[in-house]
């Protein structure tokens, strides 16, 4: 699916070919007049093709807003976002998004919810259905295809939402604190699943989270945001081998990253 936006003239070709997402000098105000609030302050961030980047920060630092701006769903007050060289001026469609809430529709079955992606985009139903079934199997939801969302646990629901975001092979995967409401054990499991899928399909992924260990576990690079107004406080490359395992959390390197990130969030 082609992104409907204006081709940016020269910049794209001059910059590194492998730059997928570029955010330049993003600033966002909410409200007007006296109640105006600055949520994002001059955010610059680039994401390479196939890179997994996490945006880490305390609640209310504007990291979700940043993600919505990146998706073209919220407009920045100033600055620009470009994806694959095109400036984002309208909702990005070459994208799969997982939201904080799973947003599964009760009037559709689990399979039907994953298929929503195909129904709205008008993709081939038969192929999409096969893909949906296999995705559901990957995340351990085989046998639940014809169940309704309310019959599933929170973790299972969010897994189905992840499948919905992956169905159409979008080049960008955006996740807005998708596993925040899940218990630690479920979260570990779903992180492993996500890593496996990401390693297999190699898409550019941006994850917004407030969990330091989740960010380290999944990311190639972590961007730490300051409290409101959100600014990029620092960036940390995570050089842990993949596939990462739950046991790695006890390694000195992992703990070292954790300490470093905690330190930079506190500042």
């Amino acid at each position, binding site marked *: *699916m082609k992104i409907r936006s204006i081709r940016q003239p020269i910049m794209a070709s001059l910059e590194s070919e492998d730059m997928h997402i570029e955010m330049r000098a993003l600033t966002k105000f909410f409200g007007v007049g006296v109640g105006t609030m600055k949520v994002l302050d001059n955010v610059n961030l680039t994401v390479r093709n196939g890179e997994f980047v996490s945006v880490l920060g305390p609640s209310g630092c504007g990291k979700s807003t940043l993600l*919505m701006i990146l*998706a073209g*769903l919220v407009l920045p007050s100033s600055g620009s976002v470009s994806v694959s060289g095109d400036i984002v001026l309208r*909702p*990005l*469609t070459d*994208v*799969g*998004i997982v*939201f*904080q*809430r799973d*947003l599964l*529709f*009760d*009037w559709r079955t689990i399979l039907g919810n994953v298929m*929503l*992606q195909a*129904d*709205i*985009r008008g993709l081939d139903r038969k192929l999409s259905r096969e893909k949906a079934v296999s995705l559901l199997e990957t995340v351990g939801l085989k046998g639940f295809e014809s169940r*309704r969302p*309310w019959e599933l646990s929170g973790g299972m629901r969010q897994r189905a939402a992840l499948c919905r975001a992956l169905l159409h092979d979008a080049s960008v995967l955006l996740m807005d604190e998708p596993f925040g409401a899940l218990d630690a054990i479920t979260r570990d499991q779903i992180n492993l699943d996500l890593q496996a899928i990401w390693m297999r399909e190699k898409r550019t992924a941006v994850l917004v989270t407030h969990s330091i260990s989740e960010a380290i576990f999944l990311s190639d690079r972590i961007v730490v945001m300051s409290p409101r107004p959100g600014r990029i406080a620092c960036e940390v490359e995570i050089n842990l081998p993949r596939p990462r395992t739950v046991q790695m959390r006890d390694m000195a390197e992992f703990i070292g990253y954790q300490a470093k990130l905690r330190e930079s969030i506190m500042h």
Partner: protein
Amino acid sequence: MIKLPAIHRFLENLAYPSVLFVLSVVFWELGARLGWFPSYLLPAPTVIFERLIKTVGLLSHHAVVTSAEILLGFAIAVMVGVLLAVVIVFVRAVDRAIYPWLVFVQVIPKVALGPLLVVWLGFGFLPKVLMAFLLAFFPVMISAMIGFRSIEKDALFLLRSMGAGQFKTLLYLRLPTALPVIFGSLKVAITLATVGAIVGEFIGANEGLGYVLVTANGVLDTALIFVALTWISALALLFYGAIALLERSFVRWHVSHRILTELSTG
């Protein structure tokens, strides 16, 4: 498959009101026979029943007329109500221009418009349909409007990221979200449409169950009044039941219906 305990519970639920009904009827019959009240005020149930059987042919004609008025008025109310709600939700200008007027019109007791409708449209079929429509329309429109608007911002974002425009958003998100509320309003609307048709016939008609009521009233034929009331109640119950049935098959997935499903599957 319905399991045995379900049947048991169903029968038990049926037993209590049935017993009450039988006792009341027996008491009523007894009172009429013993002359506790004059028969021109309250005829005995057996007398009413006898009359009901005797007049089936005649009254079924009037029932068809009234049913047609109710159903047509209701159908138009649903169509216009839902369509107008769509327009109001999507077109800001229409919302701002029409909505205050609709609320104003709603405040007018529409039954009071009856005589005017007769002046405009005469004594025929049309003014009754219009009256049924007028009464039934507003709850449908308001519910549909609220339903269409009760969507989460993130759900809208999700659909936009899939490339959905206004139409697909309506089809895949707003309409299903609104459906349970709309069905709730349909139950209110069908009852109001019945009221509208009957009142319309009161004001001026030469057929229909409301006309039978007024005529029977004129000659103090209380038994016939009760017969007509029985027909009207039966119709109202039938229509209401039909909508409840439709609701059950259309919005099975909604929270308000889940206990039923879980009982029958588990």
